[in-house]
């Protein structure tokens, strides 16, 4: 029984007693069940397993603290209206915003943050981490840390472009379909049906096998694959707005389709569309990451998270976590966006009254 184990149990039991004393039922249940689980874990895995639990709890606490502080920071710097909304954000959403903020900084200022260039060979292949290369070297001896930073620019930037294109195409088609109706609506609907009836990854592979793997090709193919989702949502949302009296009135006034879309419908359809943008970005990002992982995305030597996982995958069989870092970077961003979108959907759906 080492000192660590004693401190570990003392802290857990102390915390659960405190929680019980201050009548924090949820917190108490959480901490006390963690204590019980720790008994089992401690017997099976020894002090190592407990250390793992303690580290995980520490990381969680750190993340919670950061998100709390970041939310306060956002509340301080934003205008009163926005600040009121932000106060309702759960910690998960604040965490998501913090992660997105960090990624944006890393992506925008990549050349200044990264110590080396993305294609610069620094040391030996698969060099272990030292003070020069924070995360070690990759399969050619390039600095892993710099490549991760540049990956934030390349991978996220590409996904963002594809999402924007998908959004513009889908939203315009959806709005026009709702306004025009008739054969245009039918045609667009059927095209969307056909595209959605092929699994997205399979469709992307088919198209990339034909058109090759240029950046423009990837952006266009991915945008075409995901625009039907946007189309359907926009069509549904706009369909409810088109039948409103004020739209009818402006139609009678003799306004054109484009005016209706821009001035009457779009301002009333933004809230669901913004949430959809977040979700859509996650799908696009994961698809492009998958394609890069298969070696069909952004081509070397450009740093890209998906292909970095693939290039360093052999390290995993030696118990090295290097390939998990870019994969984790992908996962962290999608989780973060999902957290934020979850909160936004919750806010707009009126579920909070329940």
């Amino acid at each position: 029984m080492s000192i660590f184990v004693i401190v570990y149990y003392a802290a857990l039991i102390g915390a659960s007693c405190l929680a019980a004393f201050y009548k924090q039922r949820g917190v108490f249940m959480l901490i006390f069940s963690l204590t019980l689980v720790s008994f089992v874990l401690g017997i099976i895995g020894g002090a190592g397993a407990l250390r793992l639990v303690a580290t995980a709890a520490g990381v969680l606490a750190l993340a919670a603290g950061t998100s709390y502080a970041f939310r306060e920071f956002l509340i301080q710097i934003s205008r009163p209206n926005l600040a009121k909304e932000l106060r309702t954000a759960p910690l998960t959403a604040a965490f998501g915003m913090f992660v997105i903020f960090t990624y944006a900084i890393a992506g925008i200022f990549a050349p200044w943050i990264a110590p080396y260039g993305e294609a610069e060979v620094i040391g030996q292949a698969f060099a272990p981490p030292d003070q020069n290369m924070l995360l070690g070297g990759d399969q050619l001896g390039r600095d892993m840390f710099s490549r991760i930073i540049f990956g934030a620019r390349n991978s996220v930037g590409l996904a963002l472009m594809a999402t924007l294109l998908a959004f513009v195409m889908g939203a315009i088609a959806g709005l026009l379909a709702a306004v025009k109706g008739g054969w245009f609506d039918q045609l667009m609907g059927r095209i969307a049906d056909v595209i959605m009836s092929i699994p997205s990854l399979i469709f992307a592979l088919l198209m990339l096998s034909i058109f090759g793997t240029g950046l423009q090709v990837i952006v266009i193919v991915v945008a075409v694959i995901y625009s039907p989702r946007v189309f359907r949502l926009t069509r549904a949302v706009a369909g409810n707005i088109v039948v409103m009296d004020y739209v009818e009135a402006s139609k009678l006034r003799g306004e054109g389709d484009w005016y209706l879309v821009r001035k009457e419908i779009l301002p009333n359809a933004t809230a669901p569309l913004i949430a959809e943008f977040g979700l859509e970005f996650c799908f696009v990002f994961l698809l492009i990451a998958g394609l890069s992982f298969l070696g069909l995305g952004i081509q070397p030597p450009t740093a890209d998270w998906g292909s970095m996982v693939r290039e360093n995958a052999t390290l995993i069989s030696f118990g090295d976590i290097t390939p998990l870092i870019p994969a984790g970077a992908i996962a962290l961003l999608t989780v973060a966006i999902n957290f934020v979108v979850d909160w936004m959907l919750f806010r707009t759906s009126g579920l909070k009254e329940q």
Partner: protein
Amino acid sequence: MGDITRLILKRLGLGLVTILVVSVLIFFAVELLPGDIAQAVLGQGATEETVAAMREQLGLDRPAFVRYFDWLGGAATGDFGVSLVSGERVSEAISGRFAHTLFLASYAAVIAVPISILLGVFTALYRNTIFDRVANVLTLSTISSPEFFLGYILILFLAVRVTMFPAIASLSSDMTFLELLHRTFLPMLTLVLVVTAHMMRMTRAAIINLLASPYIEMARLKGTPPWKVIVKHALPNAWAPIINVVALNLAYLITGVVLVEVVFVYPGIGQLLVDAVAKRDFPIVQACCLIFAATFILLNLAADVGSILTNPRLRHPK
């Protein structure tokens, strides 16, 4: 029963039409190549004669729609032509691998479906408790992670740090069934994690939706015991959404299986597709895409038909 048969026949017809349209898309997409297949495969350096010889061999001198019907007729009888790279018959390259992929997908489905439905019902019944919140965060994280991330984490912890399962799921013909299950455990687990998260969230949403309906409240108000509310009132109407959820997620397995096969070097049809795309071996790409798309459409169709069949309102027409 006349109404319901007609409804189902209509859906089946629609599914067939969709598969046909998709096959047209898959076939004619290749026609969009600058030049034609022969030029694209042989590249810039090819001489006129070799290109002409390949055109001859592939029958490219015939009009595209004639070749389409040839291809479709062949595909319907399981003949997808000849691989451009190896010269092997595509059907032979595919058949064994397709069985492997089906095995992996059904292995994952058999484990994922019961677990996720149970968890989904539990999170719906105990919603907004700590258990529900933790499940929510965990499933959201699993859904958001790329399949290869989950796969490599599992390899790191269950195959390298603790050598319980093999990291590479290669198969040989003389393996017993138990060995097979052990060998394919990690790819199965990866798929299960992803699909379970999806399925559980959808089940939860469907059940919560159902429990909010007025007749459930009525049953509660008249004093029916809780288990009876679930079994007698909620469950008969829950089958339709649950079947829908299961079929949709099995369809989701199809996309997931491609990445998982590559991570675990599993000899399935997904890996074949990825290799063929890199080599621009169009007959194999077309065949694999058609198989994946057809399975996807059929599962979506099954979801539709299943929810029609289990809908009590349609089963007993007035």
